[in-house]
């Protein structure tokens, strides 16, 4: 028999919120297990019990909207404020937008998923058919006084559809706990570029789970950028569910003094002849912590899988911490799978070369950091989106 878990203020609030929402089973379950600690493998580097000391009341309604953190010229923008989707403006051809009741994530043994599923009341739904030109920008915000705000999005790309979707997350300057969910389904031969950027205020906690169900011959590129909240955790669960699919999962943790950012990825190869190339980079300065956990599971039937997982860390201060955990779990016998992880400082010889040409030290460092990130931003084809992402990186470099 395990000793009962001692519950803290955050857990008691969550249990009350679950009970009030009628999710008694979930409330009971959380009461028994508590929030995950470092003893739970998936949360080993992000001890939620320790990091999430308090949870504010559930968001009552939409507060005053914030200016979106990035503005892409010509983009079609939708917003979700405190969990409530808003649809405005002219919907581009090939896009069907709607609002559904309840949450979009599937059942999964994860506390953030369970909380989102139990507490999100509405889901913004998008169906994409054909080739949609303009960037679709989903602007998720948590506003007003400190609130616990679950939000939910469901994206469906029909067979052969093509789209670029940007999701941004922002909060007002308060101790919000935003717990976002997203379910993304790619039909056969669909092509999606999916960029998510956290620009939440420092006092907030940004938690986001995205699930991908990837059909045969589909092509997916993701880019997860953390450059905002004091506590950030992005969970990505992807399933290569049809033969011949390819996915480039990429991401970037940018952390500064006092921040803790975590990207946790699990790619499940269920069908054969699929390839995936996860590439995650972390840049930490000040006393901050950046975490990447990446796992590739190759199921027995997923023969001819080609998977390469790579993580690269760049330390810009002595007090920063970069943690990386690559994992491969392979049950098929005819596959090519690999993983790598590197971590270091800016190369002194590179800096000397640049400064010896007259480039001042600070500018040389900035050039090298931008160079380190280029591999992630270069494949983002939409010019406006690419420039906006470069702007986020430059802002971070300038200490904003």
């Amino acid at each position, binding site marked *: 028999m395990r000793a009962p878990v001692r519950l803290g203020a955050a857990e008691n609030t969550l249990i009350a919120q679950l009970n009030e929402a009628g999710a008694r089973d979930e409330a009971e379950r959380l009461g028994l297990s508590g929030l995950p600690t470092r003893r739970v493998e998936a949360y080993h580097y992000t001890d939620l019990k320790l990091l999430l000391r308090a949870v504010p009341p559930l968001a009552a309604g939409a507060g005053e909207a914030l200016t979106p953190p990035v503005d892409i010229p010509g983009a079609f923008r939708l917003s979700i404020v405190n969990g409530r989707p808003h649809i405005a403006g002219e919907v581009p051809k090939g896009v069907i937008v709607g609002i559904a009741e309840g949450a979009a994530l599937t059942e999964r043994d994860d506390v953030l998923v369970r909380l989102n599923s139990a507490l999100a009341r509405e889901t913004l739904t998008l169906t994409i058919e054909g080739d949609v030109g303009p960037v679709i920008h989903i602007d998720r915000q948590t506003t007003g006084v400190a609130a616990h705000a679950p939000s939910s999005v469901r994206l469906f790309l029909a067979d052969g559809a093509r789209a670029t979707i940007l999701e941004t997350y922002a909060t007002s300057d308060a101790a919000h706990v935003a717990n976002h969910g997203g379910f993304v389904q790619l039909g056969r031969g669909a092509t999606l570029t999916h960029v998510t950027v956290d620009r939440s205020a420092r006092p907030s906690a940004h938690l986001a789970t995205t699930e991908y169900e990837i059909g045969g011959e589909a092509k997916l590129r993701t880019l997860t950028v953390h450059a905002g909240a004091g506590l950030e955790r992005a969970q990505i669960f992807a399933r290569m569910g049809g033969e011949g699919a390819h996915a480039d999962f990429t991401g970037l943790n940018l952390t500064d003094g006092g921040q803790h950012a975590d990207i946790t990825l699990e790619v499940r190869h269920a069908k054969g002849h699929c390839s995936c190339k996860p590439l995650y980079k972390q840049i930490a300065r000040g006393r901050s912590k950046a975490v990447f956990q990446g796992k590739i599971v190759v199921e027995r039937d997923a023969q001819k899988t080609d998977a390469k997982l790579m993580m690269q860390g760049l330390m810009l201060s002595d007090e920063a911490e970069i943690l990386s955990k690559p994992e491969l779990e392979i049950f098929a016998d005819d596959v090519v799978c690999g993983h790598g992880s590197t971590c270091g400082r800016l190369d002194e010889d590179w800096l000397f070369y640049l400064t*010896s040409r007259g480039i001042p030290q600070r500018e040389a460092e900035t050039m*090298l950091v931008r160079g380190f990130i280029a591999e992630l931003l270069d494949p983002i084809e939409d010019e406006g989106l690419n420039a906006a992402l470069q702007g986020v990186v430059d802002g971070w470099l300038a200490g904003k």
Partner: protein
Amino acid sequence: MTTPMLEIRDLHARIEDREILKGVNLIVPKGEVHAVMGRNGSGKSTLSYVLAGKEDYEVTAGEVLLDGVNLLDLEPDERAAAGLFLAFQYPIEIPGVATMTFLKAAMNAQRKARGEPELTTPDFMRAVKEAGTALRIDSDMLKRALNVGFSGGEKKRAEILQMALLKPKMCILDETDSGLDIDALKLVAEGVNALRAPDRSMLVITHYQRLLNHIVPDVVHVFSDGRIVESGTKELALELEAKGYAEFDEAAA
């Protein structure tokens, strides 16, 4: 007497506990090309790094004046803006930094440091194209990341391209001939010779005489055990080639 372009007085430098430069004295007048010859490990490359300001080396004594300016007080970027240029023996590959971005940043940083206005993009493009044509550097090469995937010859040509664009007063060429076949060597030497000018001096560091057939020096210095042990005309290089360095080691001892 006019101020020399480069004046090195009793320069001592060490890396960790090992003294490598043991009292270098050298004067390069304006417009002259001097060669420094010496065997591997004699400290020639250290001299070039110390002049450019590489952090790993500690200067323990001596003075270096670039056109009258005390070089050792300056950071590497300030030395470059003051007119010093080091063509690296092994140019550094920097993935993710586009060659053109780098060239523009370097040119504008130096202009800014000297209080000159930044180059416009068309002016910059024109300058690169002009200098690149002579060195047979095409636009494909310039589109790549800095030195990444360049052949040995391409890297050395890219160094000379930078030299041509930055228009330094004092060029130090560190083993510019290493890793080059004869055609590549000729191309690089032509590029260097085209930059010879009354207001520009050069220090050509090499351990083979071969380069000096193409870049003909005004003065040849023999470097051994951390200092200059003999100086003479270009014939000294031929003498070295015939006799080897051993004779000069005795002079150093």
